[in-house]
């Protein structure tokens, strides 16, 4: 049966099922294939805090949303056009986020009394009013998979595990994607077990051909490649590319990379990624706790490493005392904080931006550090390089903020040419002549002399230091001098970073300011409004401490500043206090990123109010 192919410009898909249904894998395959097909892609994995919650329950639902398009996109999509629901619970959890009229493919074999009960459905949602207005396609996914694999020699339980590949095959057919990349992947991934390779391939192909042969679908869709800037691309997750950026920084600074870390969601995958890069001389130290991780990092920095520690909010809290030692010893180090929902253990697998003030002030005494943040998954590469540059140039701890959304999200990354990454070669002090541990160069930074260098023996420590000599000093005036010097040193970085850039309409009445992972949603909202003829602009802070030099000038140009954040208004707070400029703080704190439509609505409401007022 030959089916018509309809062209679409973009699609948002959501795969959802039990934690054990392999939805993360399915979503990742679909997005990688879409990226390989030349689309721009953005993803949002969304999984529970339990490894495997009990089967069939709503809190055990694992989801993976992705957005692919024939043009530049910035978010994983506000509301899916199509949902693949492997069971009733995943239907229940995701229904409210769907686009009106969306397509829902359900695995009808899982729609039975037991699962209705587990999902707290009183009756079969396929048969009552629940799904009115949606285009529901009931596919006997489990049964069809079982049929396809009936000669595989696998046990029924193992066969059942392949059903996600059937679903993936069907989706490939529906959106006219090639199945070869996934076949290759299956062959490498399961190479130790040919039976599994065969089964998964068979399921994938069965799903694909099912689309062709069934009457359930009358149309296929196609999304043309996006017109992305020329270059070589790969699809990559935030934490992965952050790690690559650190390895690149190690090569470009000439410093061996040291990572001291203790696993914590959603930062652990940086540790995983870096521990694979032994052939780049990367040393990963999985410490006994966060305090050992950060203090070993300080030790490694002292000994001359590009020293990095990675964590998430609760771990950052534990590291705070030691970061103070980093400030006092003026050693270069990078502290990566992948934010998650707080306070306390909070919502460990969800995203949030609520550690900004902790990063800024979560230490005893006046203890300034540089703070920078990444805007998107791919952006992490550049930010890793920048963190290394600033830390080593200014001999200062750099707090590098991302969040769960950036860390787990993926997008196509245009791979930079190795020789176009700027050189940041670090020279240690080796000359004993006139060496003073706390002497200052033009950046106020002190020389980095590492153990093993003859004649430069010196002692660092957390007691107040005398400037130049670095000796312990309790003198009141020296303390005041040093406190202000450390603050000045960090502030000086403003001379060495790009100014705050405004995108959108330069004559806008309203400026939307943000930081970190809200970049995509704000960008989409702004461009959509501009298309509608609204005068709006956007400035995104990569540098949170110090702020870019032109910040005040930029902000004062606009009548109205709106600051959307996934917290209770932390950036707003910093701006208000620093510049005494009023900021409308628009906050959401649900463990979920902003939808661009939410932001669009909010901005329109503000614009409406301004015109009336």
């Amino acid at each position, binding site marked *: 049966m030959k089916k018509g192919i309809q062209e679409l410009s973009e699609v948002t898909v959501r795969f959802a099922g039990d934690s054990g249904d392999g939805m993360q894998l399915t979503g990742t395959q679909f997005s990688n294939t879409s990226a390989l097909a*030349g689309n721009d892609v953005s993803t949002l994995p969304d999984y529970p805090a339990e490894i495997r919650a009990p089967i069939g329950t709503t809190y055990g639902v694992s989801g993976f949303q992705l957005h692919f398009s024939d043009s530049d996109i910035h978010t994983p999509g506000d509301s899916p056009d199509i949902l693949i629901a492997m069971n009733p619970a995943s239907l229940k959890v995701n229904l409210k986020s769907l686009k009106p009229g969306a397509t829902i493919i359900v695995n009808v074999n899982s729609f039975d009394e037991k699962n209705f009960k587990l999902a707290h459905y009183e009756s079969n949602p396929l048969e009552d009013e629940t799904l009115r207005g949606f285009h529901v396609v009931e596919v006997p996914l489990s049964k069809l998979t079982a049929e396809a694999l009936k000669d595989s020699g696998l046990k029924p339980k193992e066969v059942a595990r392949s059903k996600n590949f059937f679903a993936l095959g069907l989706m490939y057919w529906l959106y006219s994607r090639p199945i070869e990349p996934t076949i290759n992947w299956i062959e490498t991934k399961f190479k130790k077990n040919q039976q599994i390779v065969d089964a998964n391939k068979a399921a994938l192909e069965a799903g694909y051909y099912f689309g062709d042969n069934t009457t359930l679908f009358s149309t296929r869709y196609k999304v043309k490649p996006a017109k992305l800037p020329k270059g*070589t691309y790969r699809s990559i997750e935030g934490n992965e590319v952050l790690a690559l950026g650190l390895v690149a920084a190690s090569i470009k600074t000439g410093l061996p990379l040291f990572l001291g870390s203790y696993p914590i969601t959603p930062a652990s995958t940086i540790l995983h990624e870096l521990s694979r890069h032994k052939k780049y*001389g990367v*040393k990963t130290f999985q410490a006994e706790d966060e305090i050992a991780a950060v203090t070993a990092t300080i030790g490694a920095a002292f000994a001359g490493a590009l020293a990095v520690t990675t964590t998430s909010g609760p771990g950052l809290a534990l590291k705070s005392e030691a970061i103070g030692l980093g400030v006092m010893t003026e050693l270069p180090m990078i502290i990566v904080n992948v934010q998650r929902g707080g306070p306390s253990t909070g919502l460990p697998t969800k995203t949030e931006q609520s550690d900004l003030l902790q990063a800024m002030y979560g230490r005893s005494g006046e203890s300034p550090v540089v703070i920078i943040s990444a805007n998107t998954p791919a952006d992490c590469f550049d930010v890793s390089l920048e963190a290394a540059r600033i830390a080593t140039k200014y001999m200062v701890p750099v707090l590098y903020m991302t969040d769960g959304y950036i860390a787990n999200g993926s997008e196509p990354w245009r*791979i*930079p040419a190795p020789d176009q990454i700027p050189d940041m070669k670090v020279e240690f002090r080796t000359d004993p002549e006139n060496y003073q541990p706390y002497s200052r160069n033009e950046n106020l930074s002190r020389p980095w002399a590492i153990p093993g260098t003859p004649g430069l023996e010196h*002692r660092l420590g*957390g007691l107040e230091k005398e400037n130049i000599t670095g000796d312990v000093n309790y003198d009141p005036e020296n303390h005041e001098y040093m406190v202000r010097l450390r603050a000045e040193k960090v502030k000086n970085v403003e001379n060495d970073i790009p100014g705050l850039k405004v995108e959108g309409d330069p004559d806008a009445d309203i400026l939307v300011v943000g930081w970190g992972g809200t970049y995509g949603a704000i960008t989409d909202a702004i461009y959509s409004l501009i298309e509608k003829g609204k005068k709006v602009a956007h400035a995104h802070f990569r540098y949170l401490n110090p702020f870019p030099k032109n910040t005040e000038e930029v902000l004062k140009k606009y009548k109205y500043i709106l600051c959307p954040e996934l917290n209770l208004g932390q950036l707003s707070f910093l701006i208000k206090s620093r510049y005494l400029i009023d900021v409308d703080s628009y906050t959401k704190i649900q463990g979920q990123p902003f939808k661009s439509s939410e932001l669009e609505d909010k901005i329109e409401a503000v614009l409406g109010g301004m015109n009336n007022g």
Partner: protein
Amino acid sequence: MAENITTDEIALKPKDFSSSQDVRWCPGCGDYSILAQIQRVSPEIGVKKENYVWISGIGCSSRFPYYMDTYGMHGIHGRAAAIATGVKIQNPELSVWVATGDGDALSIGGNHFIHACRRNIGIKIILFNNRIYGLTKGQYSPTSEKGKITKSSPYGSIDYPFNPTALAIGSDATFVARSIDRDPKHLKEMISRAGSHAGTAFIEVYQNCNIFNDGAFSPLTDKNTKADNVLVLENNKPMVFGKENDKGVILDGFTPRVVDLTDSKYSLDDLWVHNEHDIHASRAHILSQFPEFEGLPTPIGIFRHIDKPTYEHDLHQQLKDVIAKEGEGNLKDLLFSGNTWEVN
């Protein structure tokens, strides 16, 4: 396995290890003696001056690095072993030493201490055990005796003390020793031995705090009582002690017992012969338990000294092995790995 750290020919003197900073301990403090012995040993271990690194936490004892003209860091309370671990991993060529107190190492720093021992990371931990928090002016510490009256235990402490050597053995430390500030010769030898051990080397040094816990070790240091209270462990030698070398220790099953060597019931041949290299820790464990038994002397010397690959060795070996197998990484391969595609 001795540490594979090179030195050159320049003959250094103890005073070459003395920094320009005035030493700021109380007059009479046992820390002075430890400093003196370490400065004396430092030129003799075969390590270049610039390759020494001294790391400490916080406490009177933790001021130590300031007085050594080597690389050093006065860290934060309890974290010396972890900082030192980072230094040693980054550069295994360095000879990395930790100066720490009973509070610093065993109270707030207990976790890093046991993990350092477990990993057999090549750092030397010198524990200045004065059984008190000195710097904060005299609270009981995790090595203070039960019942001790201090500022924070005016009615007597109710904490049982740690047995630091037992804890180190329970954490699988490969080098465990004890010495006393007032026995400079012995102390010097222990430091020297620790200096050439490749894995984690732990020395508990009994140290008198004459301000807040004066005389804590006087039975072990007073001329009159010392010989009867201290057992100096020597490898392959029977355990003899006493003013006239008139007492010995035998092992009666698992029970160490003191015997009289003068009444001809026991001779040297009956005594427990110390073997510091015993691969199994059980006898070292019994040595650590001497305080539990009535009438037994306090052992000083090396309880245990075995060879086992170090953490930093295995880590760097793994890097080498991977490079040997996969080739050295280059930036291009790194960036362009995985599934890539071209946009033209």
